[in-house]
């Protein structure tokens, strides 16, 4: 193992940021959702990297839980997007601004 763990962390940071920027700049609800998935995965990477660094499996367990929860979240989230689309004929999150003050 020659690769320093911090490299993985930096990759994780970059991916997370890319995901964040994606959430901020994209309007398509599905792509925003994908960006969120990217963020989650970036965090998973960081968790597994920490697990490696600390020499125990806790980080991997946490990443495992994160994946399971992500699966549940995707299912519900996509259902919401589908019903949003049925209502508004659009997957643009800017169109769903009912809460505008």
């Amino acid at each position, binding site marked *: 193992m020659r690769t320093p763990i911090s490299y993985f962390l930096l990759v994780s940071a970059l991916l997370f940021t890319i995901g*964040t920027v994606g*959430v*901020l*700049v994209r*309007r398509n609800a599905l792509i*925003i959702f994908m960006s969120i998935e990217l963020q989650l995965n970036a965090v998973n990477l960081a968790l597994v990297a920490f697990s490696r660094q600390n020499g125990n499996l806790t980080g991997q367990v946490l990443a495992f839980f994160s994946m399971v929860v992500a699966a549940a979240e995707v299912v519900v989230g996509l259902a919401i997007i589908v019903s949003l689309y049925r209502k508004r004929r659009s997957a643009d*999150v*800017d169109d*769903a*601004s*009912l*809460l*505008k*003050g």
Partner: protein
Amino acid sequence: MNILAPFIPAIPLAGAAVLLLTGPRWRDRSAGWLASAAVAVAFGLAVTVFGTLVSRPVTLRLSHVSLFEWIGVGSFRVDIAFRVDPLSTVMALTVTGVGAMIHLYAVDYMRGDPRYARFFAYMNLFVFFMLVLVLADNYLLLYVGWEGVGLCSYLLIGFWFERKTAADAAKKAFVTTRIGDSALLIGLIFMWSRFGSLDFDRVLPHAHALANGTATVMAMLLFAGAVGKSAQLPLHVWLPDAMEGPTPVSALIHAATMVTAGVYLVVRSHQIFEASGVALTIVAVVGLVTAIYAGLSAIGQDDIKRMLAYSTISQLGFMFFGAGMGAYSAAIFLLVAHAFFKAVLFLGAGSVMHALPDEETDMTRMGGLRRAMPLTAVTWVVGWLAMAGIPPLSGFFAKDQVVAAASQAGRIGLWYAALFGALLTALYETRGTFLTFFGEPRHRGHPHDPPSLMRTALVSLAVGAALAGVLGLSATSGLLPKFLTPVVGPTKEAVAGPSELVLSIISVAVALVGILTAWLVYLSGRIDWMALRVRFASAKRTFQRGFYVNDFYSGAIVGPAKLAAAFVAYVVDRRVVDGTLTGIGRLVSSSAGAARRAQTGLVRTYAVGILLGATAVLGYLVVRS
């Protein structure tokens, strides 16, 4: 046996509760029978209690029955407690006895009313509150009864609330008496601040220690309550209007309950009035003025029930006058006697109305009814003569004692005035009698005597009215005065004026003069009283309208009050109060309007916020470490 005392009010209460909860299930007249039975049982209990009381030595004729502690705040303690003493027993007997007869009368009178059971529930409740009032052992419980009586009068006067006049009269009665009630409540608070208690036993024995002015204020506050409840000037206006209720209600209000409460209160609290001195005089003057005023007004009435209402006011005036003269037992005597003969008169009037088409109450359209309704006429005549003060009927002794008290106290001016009042009493009552039962018939339809049940009530009460005089053949040694002595003290010795016998003769003479005058005008045929009405139309109208007191009130008090209310409603409330509130609302909403710009509704804007926060927190952590 004094443990029975709480049951005296409890049984009518139970009757009321049963009737209120199960009212519609009672068929035909059963509800009326039940209510009458409840009051009758209460009367029986009162008699029992009275019996035990009489069997005791004079000094021991007082007992308290405390049910439980009602209010206990610090040193302030009020119990639900009843007091059995001569005064309360007499009152309870009167209330239940006369009340029972009125209930009995109403069983038939109210027959067919769609709210029959409810009527009797209210009646029972009325009796219950009145009994609480007279049997209470402290002022607060008395006040409960006091207010309850007001409530029941409201419910019963407005019993036929479909009629606007009835609803208005009920409101008027309630509001007008409330003025007095408020004064009474203030008086009670004042009393508590002075004595730290509201128990009779802890207030009245110490009343003489009060400073003169304090006593006057306290007495006047109590008297204001009495004035309201007993329809004395200037708060009498509700009573004539109260005739809108069913006649048994009027009888109950006038004879047994409600209006007598004021007299009872004054007599019960006489120590406070005596401590003031001037207060008693005020009571006497107010009573006398009311008596004369109401007497004059009664002469002007064509409506039989209004005439009786003014007569009640005037008789109550006499009671207050008696109390003000210090003749408390005479006042109570008059109260009892009045209960009988006024009940007779009212129920007789009810029978007449019942017999005539369309509930006729205008006496100018009656006349000669004695042939059609002999029994009613006989009982009425008993009531009339009793009221007018013809011996040996009860009214004679009672009124004679009251009037004589002035003479014996050496207040000749007041005595003359009282005699004038008595003259007026004889005059207007005779007028009413002649117009209704004598002379040529002017009525429509074919009147007849009421059914047997109503007749029974009429006869019983007439007998009472005739014989109640035995209670007080003499002001000093009569049964009632002696019985009441432990409470009100012995009747004052005469200090001036002619002897009792002379005074009695003068009284009878005055009554006869009144009767003769009325005969001359209304029955002899020598004077065309109809033409007289036209000739003295303005005087007639003044009398009829009760010297325009009512109109004065609506002009001088109600009008400005309405204006003030409008001012409060449309200026103070709308501009100031609402303005402040809407101002606050506008402030909030405008600041919210500014703040809501942050709420774009766009998820991505919020996400920027989240990221900003995350960056800031992380930055802080990095910089700090």
